[in-house]
């Protein structure tokens, strides 16, 4: 029988939720690192017991924790994130030049083939890589140094590198996304980078079709088709069929095309999930109804999934790293809210249950399917 392990990062600690493959009864372990913000934790795809966690606080800064036993025990590893070369400047909110300053790790992405290799997306935006299980970190500084870095500007949540997608077919290809700069791609393992934002349109920036400056909230891919990318932008849900060379809008009939997470079904590459949020100033669902929207056609045509989700008086948000899928059949879909609920659907989104209801505000959700 399979086991599903859900890794939940919250404003005040990490939690590990486990169930058998039926996904009906859940054990809750934690909090780990109680009182600390856990922006993200994720397991290695080649060694599922190897987990990495980003632990931070406004008081005591950034730590990285590593587990070799699936989250039962943890040990701190390296936390020296030093920008390569001259740190340089990016744009501040008022348009002036502002020095790059490390603040925190938003996202950890273990490599697809080696559990000792892990990438870290940080604020102020940069990508780091460790080849020794997190003990030491080296910036892939070609990203900040390719030319557009001085024009990047923070979004409301800070200038964070929040998404790292590793291409399973082309080992040198990595996609990353930054708020509010956009999407960038390397084809040589992180040496050289370029922006890939053609087709994005952001009305709230001086040049709506600028090469950089777009507030991309999240991108997603299906492992079987890495040239097809989906994006939840600040406003607009977008799609690329050419590895990010061009994008087109697929918001279709969504009640709002603002939102944070976007996820792809484990077995159906054209089935997508988003959680529409009313607006950028009202970070809660339209009409107080928490609805996941599913498209089975790769976008444009969306259906509301409501069964088991609160359909009145619900004013939580679902943050960008807070949705994930398992790889069982039928595919399980999971998301966490700023109200501390983690909802799960064991049937691709048709039916939902809160598998835990009263956690601190959820910052991230990752799922491991253990055979």
């Amino acid at each position: 029988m399979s086991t599903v392990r859900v890794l939940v990062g919250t404003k005040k600690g990490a939690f590990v939720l486990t169930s058998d493959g039926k996904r009906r009864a859940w054990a809750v372990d934690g909090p780990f690192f109680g009182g600390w913000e856990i922006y993200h934790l994720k397991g290695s795809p080649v060694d599922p017991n190897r987990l990495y966690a980003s632990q931070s606080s406004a008081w005591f800064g950034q730590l990285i924790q590593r587990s070799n036993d699936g989250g039962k025990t943890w040990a701190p590893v390296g936390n020296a994130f030093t920008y390569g070369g001259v740190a340089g400047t990016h744009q501040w909110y008022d348009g002036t030049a502002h020095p790059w300053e490390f603040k925190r790790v938003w996202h950890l992405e273990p490599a697809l083939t080696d559990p000792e290799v892990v990438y870290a997306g940080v604020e102020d935006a940069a990508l780091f890589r460790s080849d020794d299980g997190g003990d030491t970190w080296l910036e892939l500084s070609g990203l900040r140094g390719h030319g557009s870095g001085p024009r990047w500007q923070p979004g409301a949540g800070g200038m964070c590198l929040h998404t790292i997608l590793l291409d399973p077919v082309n080992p040198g290809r990595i996609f990353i996304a930054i708020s509010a700069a956009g999407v960038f791609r390397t084809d040589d393992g992180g040496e050289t980078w370029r922006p890939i934002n053609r087709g994005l349109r952001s009305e709230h920036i001086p040049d709506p079709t600028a090469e950089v400056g777009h507030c991309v909230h999240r991108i997603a891919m299906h492992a079987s088709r890495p040239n097809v990318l989906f994006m939840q932008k600040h406003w607009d849900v977008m799609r690329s069929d050419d590895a990010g060379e061009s994008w087109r809008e697929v918001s279709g009939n969504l009640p709002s095309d603002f939102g944070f997470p976007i996820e792809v079904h484990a077995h159906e590459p054209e089935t997508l999930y988003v959680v529409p949020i009313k607006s950028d100033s009202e970070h809660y669902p339209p009409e107080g109804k928490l609805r996941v929207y599913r498209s089975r056609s790769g976008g444009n045509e969306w259906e509301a999934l409501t069964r088991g989700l609160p359909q009145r008086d619900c004013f939580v948000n679902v943050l960008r790293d807070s949705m994930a899928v398992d790889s069982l059949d039928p595919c399980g879909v999971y998301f966490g809210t700023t109200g501390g609920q983690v909802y799960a659907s064991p049937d691709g989104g048709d039916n939902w249950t809160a598998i835990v209801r009263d956690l601190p505000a959820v910052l991230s959700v990752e799922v491991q399917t253990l055979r």
Partner: protein
Amino acid sequence: MIQVVLPPHLRNLAGVEGPLVLEVAGIATQRSILDAVEASYPVLRGTIRDRVTLRRRAFVRFFACGQDVSLDPDEAPLPEAIAAGKEPFLIIGAIAGG
């Protein structure tokens, strides 16, 4: 030997329960004490002061003999009672955030 009291989160991180008792080389100052703390507990590097600039983190404060010495120069000598180990050097997580 000098006594250093850590805030609870850093005690957990360092895996200690009571005050640290440390040999500090030379004159007891904020810098020499923190050098000794970090040498004995490398996991605390970056949590009290910046790794590179050695500037105190904004929400961390230092107290010695009832006085907030956070804004004093980090190489200023601390009171004799601290140097003699009669009073602890306190590292405090500031009350911040409401």
